[in-house]
């Protein structure tokens, strides 16, 4: 039995992170959270989370950056918005979860082979390249990068989908790929400008 000290010292708090969380769209009222737990109670994924949504919100607003970004919680969120519609203080918890996901990806804080952020980034890459997502290729790419064995395990399902005509083989693309890329580039550029 490994004995650890779990005490939290003030030096661990990251005030800049706490401030950032209160500035994300949807997180403006995070300081008003009364910790009632309704978000956790309504979340269908909360039984599987290491920190319940309520607990994560308080840790985030106090600035415990490492615990928050390294948590399993943020990746388990399926954005069903149950928490957002329930919250008595009208905190958009789903939006906060998204922001934490983005921050975790930006800071590179997640296990390399963790499928969820890999799915997000492959999804994004495919859109930027083609303008649309082809489910079959997306799944292949994600599992190649994270869990090859599971890909083989899904072959039965894959065959069924192929036979019922639910598998798109030819990658879907759009004509306005350049237009879309220009748009995304301009948005990125302006964001950088504003942040500077």
């Amino acid at each position, binding site marked *: 039995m490994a004995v650890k000290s779990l005490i939290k010292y003030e030096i661990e708090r990251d005030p800049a992170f706490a401030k950032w969380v209160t500035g994300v*769209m949807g997180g403006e009222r995070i300081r008003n959270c009364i910790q009632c737990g309704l978000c956790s109670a309504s979340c269908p994924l909360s039984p599987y989370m290491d920190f319940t949504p309520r607990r994560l919100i308080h840790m985030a607003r106090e600035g415990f950056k490492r615990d928050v970004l390294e948590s399993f919680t943020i990746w388990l969120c399926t954005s069903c918005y149950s928490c957002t519609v329930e919250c008595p203080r009208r905190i958009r918890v789903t939006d906060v979860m998204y922001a934490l996901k983005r921050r975790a990806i930006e800071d590179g804080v997640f296990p390399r082979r963790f499928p969820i952020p890999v799915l997000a980034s492959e999804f994004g890459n495919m859109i930027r390249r083609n303008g649309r997502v082809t489910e079959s290729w997306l799944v292949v790419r994600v599992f190649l990068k994270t869990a090859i064995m599971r890909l083989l395990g899904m072959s039965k399902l894959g065959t069924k989908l192929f036979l019922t005509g639910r598998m798109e083989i030819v990658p879907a693309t759009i004509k306005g790929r350049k237009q879309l890329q220009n748009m995304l580039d301009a948005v990125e550029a302006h964001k950088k400008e504003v942040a500077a």
Partner: protein
Amino acid sequence: MKRYLYYPGCSLRGTGKAYEESLLMVFKALNIELEELEDWNCCGATAYMAIDEVSSFALAGRNLAIAEKKNLDLLAPCSACFLVLNKTQRYIKEYPKVAETLAHGFKAAGLEYHGTAKVRHPLDVLINDIGMDQIKACIKTPLTGLKVAPYYGCQIVRPYATFDLMYYPVTMDKLLRAVGAEVVDYPLKTRCCGGSQKGTLPEVGLSLIHILLKEARRREAHIVSTICPLCQFNLDAFQDEASKKYGEISMPVVYFTQLLGLAFGFSAKELGLERNIVAAKQTLAKYAPAAA
């Protein structure tokens, strides 16, 4: 003749193919013309939001700007697309800094955005624009005796319940009853199916899927009716696994448009009913001969 712009979304060309097929059949029968949105791009769904927020608005924004050019409402059958398009419109309006950054994006794309496109869901269009009378007039074989569990999922009622009740939506119930089916009381009708978690965290996803199927059976439904391609996929594709882990379960899961189409007399093939993993034809054939 009513006309709408049509935004299928990536899923309706893949796993959700049957949704598109049945939707097109039903709308044609009701004399509605659907014009596919020109060169539409992926809306980003829930995944792009995890990469960049404003850019995900840009993805949806491009579609909205293209839609604005025609003076028609934009029909978005997929729940995720429906939500993202709506959310984009609201956030551009609510947050000036989003509007400002996107303005640069629209300019670079050579598009204009005024926020005038109206995003509609097929349930909304059927109930409010077309109306029950016209729908009932198209019925050839009412689905009498078929017990349906109506499953709406999350994203068409949360966080924006624009055309139905947030906690206990009823539009699909009304449509199914109108075509003669019996709709069972199904309190889990808006409980999350797990979305993409079945792929990434299989055990978690499976438990969420199982409870939905189990309750539908407990309430004596013959079939589950859905409106979202990912929900349909989740509930349809993993029943073997669920049976192994939790006990035998076999419940056909179809799109509401397929049920409407059956009532309108279309065949199983036309409505994509042969694409189900868990066979639906046999169950449905008892109530609608066209399904055979």
